[in-house]
C-alpha cells in the first residue's frame, strides 16, 4: 500500500461532505443505518401505511374506489360477525398461551435446575419440533387427532371410549392443542433464561433459614422468573391471535379465527379494503393486548 493510494481514495468523496461527516457524529450514524432504515421503510412501514390507506377505500364492482371513507369500519361495528370472531381469536390465543406456559414452565425449570451437563443439548432437544416445517407439524397433528388417528385408536383400544371422539379434530380444541405445541419453543426459551439467571445463593440462604422446597419455590424462584413468563406470554399471544393456517387446517367450521376471515377477504371475497380495515383493527387490538402485557411486566419487575 502506498501513499499515492491513500490520497486517491480520499479524493473520491467531496471534501465538504467528508468534513460534514467528521463534524457530526449523529449523521455518520444515520448514514451507516441508512440501508437498514431504507429496508424497514420499504418492507414494513410502506405496506403498513398502504393497509391503513386502503382500509378507507371502498369497492364498486371489481374496482376499488379510492375516495376515503369510514364505511368499512362502520360495517364492522354493525355486523356482529367481526366482534364474535375477534373475541374467539382472543379467547383461543389466551387459552393456548396459558396452556403452553403452564406446560413449558416445568420443562424450563428442569433444564435450569436439574441438569448440570450438556444443557445446550437439552435445549436443542426441546426445540426439536421446530426442525420440521410448520405445515408438517400441523399435518402430523391431523394424523394424531384424526377420527382414525393415533389418539382415538389408543383410546378405543384401552376401552376408555366406545366411539371415536370426533371433537378432537376440526374444532377449537384442536386449534388450541396444535397452537400450544407448535409455539412451545417460544415459551420455553424465555422462561429458561429467566430461571437460569436466578442467583442460587438465595435458595441456599432460604434453605439455611428453614424454608421447605415448596416455600422456596413460591417465595424465590417463581417471583424471580416472572419476567420470563411475561415475555413468553407475549411471544405466544401476539403471533397466535392472528393465526391463519392452523385453524384453516384443523379448525373445522367452528374453529375459524379472524385470520381466516382476513384471508377470505383478500382471497375469494376479493374485498381488499374491508380486509385492510379488519387488519388495522386487529393491529390495534393486539397493540392493546401488548400494552397490557407491558404494564404487567412493569408490575412484575417492581
Amino acid at each position, binding site marked *: 500500500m502506498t501513499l499515492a493510494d491513500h490520497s486517491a481514495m480520499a479524493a473520491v468523496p467531496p471534501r465538504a461532505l467528508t468534513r460534514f461527516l467528521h463534524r457530526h457524529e449523529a449523521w455518520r450514524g444515520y448514514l451507516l443505518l441508512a440501508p437498514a432504515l431504507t429496508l424497514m421503510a420499504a418492507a414494513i412501514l410502506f405496506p403498513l401505511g398502504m393497509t391503513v390507506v386502503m382500509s378507507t377505500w371502498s369497492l364498486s364492482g371489481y374496482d376499488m374506489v379510492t375516495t376515503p371513507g369510514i364505511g368499512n369500519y362502520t360495517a364492522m361495528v354493525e355486523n356482529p360477525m367481526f366482534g364474535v370472531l375477534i373475541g374467539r381469536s382472543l379467547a383461543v390465543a389466551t387459552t393456548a398461551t396459558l396452556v403452553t406456559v403452564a406446560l413449558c414452565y416445568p420443562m424450563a425449570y428442569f433444564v435450569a435446575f436439574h441438569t448440570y451437563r450438556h444443557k445446550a443439548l437439552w435445549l436443542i432437544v426441546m426445540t426439536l419440533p421446530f426442525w420440521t416445517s410448520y405445515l408438517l407439524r400441523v399435518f402430523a397433528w391431523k394424523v394424531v387427532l384424526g*377420527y382414525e388417528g393415533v389418539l382415538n385408536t389408543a383410546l378405543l383400544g384401552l376401552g376408555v371410549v366406545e366411539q371415536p371422539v370426533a371433537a378432537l379434530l376440526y374444532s377449537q380444541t384442536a386449534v388450541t392443542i396444535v397452537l400450544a405445541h407448535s409455539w412451545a419453543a417460544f415459551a420455553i426459551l424465555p422462561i429458561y433464561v429467566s430461571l437460569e439467571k436466578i442467583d442460587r445463593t438465595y435458595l441456599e440462604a432460604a434453605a439455611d433459614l428453614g424454608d421447605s422446597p415448596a416455600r422456596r419455590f413460591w417465595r424465590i424462584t417463581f417471583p424471580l422468573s416472572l419476567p420470563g413468563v411475561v415475555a413468553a406470554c407475549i411471544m405466544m399471544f401476539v403471533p397466535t391471535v392472528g393465526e391463519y393456517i392452523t385453524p384453516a387446517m384443523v379448525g373445522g367450521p367452528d374453529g375459524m379465527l379472524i385470520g381466516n376471515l382476513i384471508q377470505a377477504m383478500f382471497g375469494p371475497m376479493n374485498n381488499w379494503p374491508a380486509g385492510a380495515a379488519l387488519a388495522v383493527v386487529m393491529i390495534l387490538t393486539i397493540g392493546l393486548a401488548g400494552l397490557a402485557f407491558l404494564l404487567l411486566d412493569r408490575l412484575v419487575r417492581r
Partner: protein
Amino acid sequence: MDVLDQLGALREGKLSRRAFGRSLFASGISLVTVPMLPRRAQAAAEDHATYFTWGGFDIPDYFDEYVAKRGELPNFVTFGSVEEALNKLSSGFVADIAHPCLSDVPRWSSTGLFQPVDTSRLSNWADMIPELWNVPYNLKDGMPWMVPFEWGQTSIAYRTDLFDLQGEESWDMLWDARHAGRLGSLGAGGDVWWCAAIKAGVPFDQINTDMAFEKISAVLREQRPLIRMYTDDTTSLDTALAAGEIVASMAWNSSVVSLSAQGVPVKFARPKEGALTWVCGMMLHAQAPKIDSAYDVLDSLISEAAAVFNMRDYGYGGVNRKAFAGFSDEELAVLGLSRNPVDTLQAGHFGIPQTAEWDRRMTETWEQIKLGF
C-alpha cells in the same frame, strides 16, 4: 493494493482501520453488483408457458404431446378456487393459461385480461366435442374464449357401508341430521351455492333474485351445524372419506374414482333432483409472455391421451371425441358417463353465467355462512 498484503496485515493484527473499512466497502459493492452481471442461461423452465390451474391438474400425464415436442413440462401454479384465481390474476399475476369454468367466461373475459383462442393453431381442435364450447357467450368473432378441458358433475360421494340411505339418493342426504358432524362439503361458492339452489328448489334462471338469495342462504345455514369440514382440497376430502371421518360429502367425480380404486366402498350419488353439471377449460392471458408454448400446452391438454387420462383416472368427461372410442358402454356407465356427452350434461343442472355483482354478493354471503353468520 495487494490482497495478500491485506491478508498478511490481518493475520499480524496490523490492518489499519481505514484499510479494513475500504475492504468492507469493496466487498459490499461487489455483493450488490454480482446479481447484475450477465449470467449463464438458466434452466429451460423460463422458456415454457405457465399453466395456472387447480391442484391435481399439475401432473405430467396431460403433457405427453407437449413433452414430446418441447422436451420438458410447462410451469405450474395452482389455485384452490376460481374466485381466488381471478383475484390473483386481476391483481397483476400473469400466467399464460388459466383454468376457469364455462359459466365464469363472461365475467372473466370482461376483465380484459384474456384473449380469444385462435383454434387454427390447435392440431387437435377438429376432434373437440362442439357442444362443450359452442355457446354464444364463449365466442368472440367465432373464436372461443375458453377451450374446454374437462366436464363432469358436482354431486354427493357417500360411503355405502357407513351412510344409512333411506329411499332414493337425493340432496337431502347432505342435510341428514342423523349423520350430523359426519358430513362434508366443498368450500367454494361456485359449487355450493348452485347445489344448494337445487336443494332449495330455486330454478337456475331465477338465481339472481332476492328470493333466491334468501332461500339458498336459509338451506345453507340449516346445513352448516351438520358439516364437519368445508374444503376445496380434494385430497383432504378423499382422506376424510376413506377414514370414515365423514360419511358423505359434496364432491366431484374424481374423488369417487380414486377412492374406488383404493377399494373404499364409496358411491357417486345420482340425486333425484339432478346433479350440478359443469364444463371447465383453459383461457389464454391477453399478455401471455410465452404464447407459442402456451398454444402447445393447449393442444396437449385437448389431445386424445389427455382426455383418456381424464376419463379413466379422474372420472371426468373427456373433450376429445376420439377418447370415447376406447371405452365400452359398461366402462362409461361405471364412470357415470355416456357415449353422447350431451345426454349427461343435459340430465343435470347446468350453471348459468352471472354478473360480477351477483358473484360478489354470493361469495360474500357464502363466506359469512361458512363462518357461522
